[in-house]
């Protein structure tokens, strides 16, 4: 695969969705910065009470728990970015192959020496990896900003008030906490590959309303299956069970898994990886092959 063409194709996708991919994470980060600031400005700050609280914290700080505490805090900060990023991803996948057919630019793109495999791969990579990277990066930058603020606060507290929070900051294992969150990016992408592939298929197939094409066939399949299962007295619906089982990981599960199994921050990661199996490969391969087939054979004029 030609990497320079792949890079150019991904760059093209970023240009096309530039507004959304730039302003959504910036606005989200803005909300995290300005809401506390606003509440501070509106409510004022009681310095005495704050100092008492901080002193209490320094007295009861249990350095061995700080890592876990920070990890949960980091997940709490990343969660809205991951959630909003996921909505953006879904929007991207549903529109990425539909929009260029709607605005008739597909013929222009296809008259250039870029293969259909390359186009589909670049769109998949953009949606599954590049978009989450953008949102993860925004969350990380926000975290860096907060850590910088914490360092400034530590300096002020230690110089001005003789309160040392350095031990607490050092034991937070910030890098490894954020590192684990970043490590989950690829397993999440692989785990959700069947969903992404399905959305791409809806995007290439639909002549109108790709969102409906993405949702209605699944709903129809589940409803029909439920009726069939009910009338034939079968034990359980196959597709219903399949979908429920495959997507049974929720953000809550992940956080609980990593918090409950105290020493193991990798528990969430392991839970994700365990969910990736032959179903991921088979369903994704089938749906992507169908997407490619439509890209090559669907008449656009």
């Amino acid at each position, binding site marked *: 695969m030609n990497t320079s*063409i792949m890079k150019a194709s991904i*760059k093209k996708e970023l240009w096309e969705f530039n507004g959304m991919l730039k302003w959504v994470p910036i606005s989200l980060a803005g909300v995290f910065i300005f809401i506390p600031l606003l509440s501070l400005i509106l409510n004022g700050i009681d310095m005495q009470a704050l100092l008492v609280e901080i002193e209490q914290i320094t007295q009861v700080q249990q350095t061995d728990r700080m890592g876990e505490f920070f990890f949960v805090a980091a997940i709490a900060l990343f969660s809205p970015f991951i959630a909003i990023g996921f909505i953006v991803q879904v929007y991207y996948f549903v529109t990425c192959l539909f929009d260029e057919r709607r605005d008739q*630019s597909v*013929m*222009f793109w296809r008259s*250039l020496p870029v*293969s259909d495999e390359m186009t589909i791969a670049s769109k998949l990579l953009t949606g599954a990896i590049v978009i989450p990277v953008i949102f993860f990066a925004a969350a990380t930058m926000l975290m860096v900003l907060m850590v910088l603020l914490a360092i400034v606060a530590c300096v002020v507290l230690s110089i001005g008030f003789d309160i040392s929070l350095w031990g607490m900051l050092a034991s937070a294992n910030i890098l490894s906490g954020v590192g684990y969150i970043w490590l989950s990016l690829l397993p999440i992408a692989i785990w959700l590959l069947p969903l992404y592939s399905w959305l791409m298929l809806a995007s290439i197939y639909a002549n109108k309303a790709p969102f409906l094409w993405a949702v209605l066939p699944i709903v129809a399949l589940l409803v029909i299956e439920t009726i069939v299962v009910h009338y034939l007295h079968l034990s359980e619906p196959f597709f219903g069970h399949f979908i429920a089982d495959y997507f049974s990981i929720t953000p809550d599960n992940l956080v609980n898994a990593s918090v409950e199994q105290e020493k193991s921050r990798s528990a969430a990661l392991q839970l994700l990886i365990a969910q990736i199996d032959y179903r991921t490969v088979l369903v994704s391969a089938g749906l992507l092959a169908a997407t490619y087939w439509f890209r090559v054979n669907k008449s656009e004029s």
Partner: protein
Amino acid sequence: MMSSLISISNLNKAYGSKKVLSGVNLSLNAGQIVGLVGPNGAGKTTCLQAILGLTDFDGDISVLGHHPRKDRVKMLNDVAYISDVAILPKWLKVSQALSYMQDIHPNFAIEKAQAFLAKTNIAANDKVKALSKGMVAQLHLALILAIDAKVLILDEPTLGLDILTRRQFYNHLLEDFYTEEKCIIVTTHQIEEIEHILTDVAFIQQGKIVLAQSTDDIKERFNLVAVSNEQVAQADELQPLFKNSMMGLTTMLFDNQDKETLQNLGKVTVPSLADVFVGIMNKETC
């Protein structure tokens, strides 16, 4: 010696039960500018899309030795395409279009495109949605003419443009793209506007090529005669392809008739390609 850049033999295409192309045979050589002319729905666009590998087909097509479907990407390194159905997306910036082309196209010369755009009112920072239809066509032309392609395929490239822009478009095509080593295939409804640049024409009707010849041969082969009313009956015996009566004179188009015989019937002139097209289309539908 002329070399064949595109050869099409027994090209067939159907959408369901509707036959769009049947038994098309064409050969295009270096140096040719071929007009593919036909009424709406005759199969022109389908034919061009088959050549570009954008639709599947039955039969054999070879473009620069490549099969358009199996070898599409390699082929497109040397084939450029402008069509009224291949529209530049509205979100695209001029600078982005140039940068993208440079990244993905081995035969794209960005300086050439920039030099072309410098002569227009199009700025590098402009978005396609901010450009007029004529400017978008100019941008598209700048992108395509900067490709050192051997074959250029134009499908109604000037549709919806005003006459000044249309003229400019074809002037640039000849000045900035055309050389003896290249071949251009163009479809248009305004055949009279590009008649002077065509070396060959292929008339297509209901999916079949009904005439494919050089414009020089066509002008030799067909004659337009202004026949007076008294001689109309005599002229009718020579089976004109087409006749049009107006103000006491009947204009008749003849195919392969002896020039001297025709001169006895009235004033003989060389027909335009539009005249021949109308004549051929009427003959086929009779």
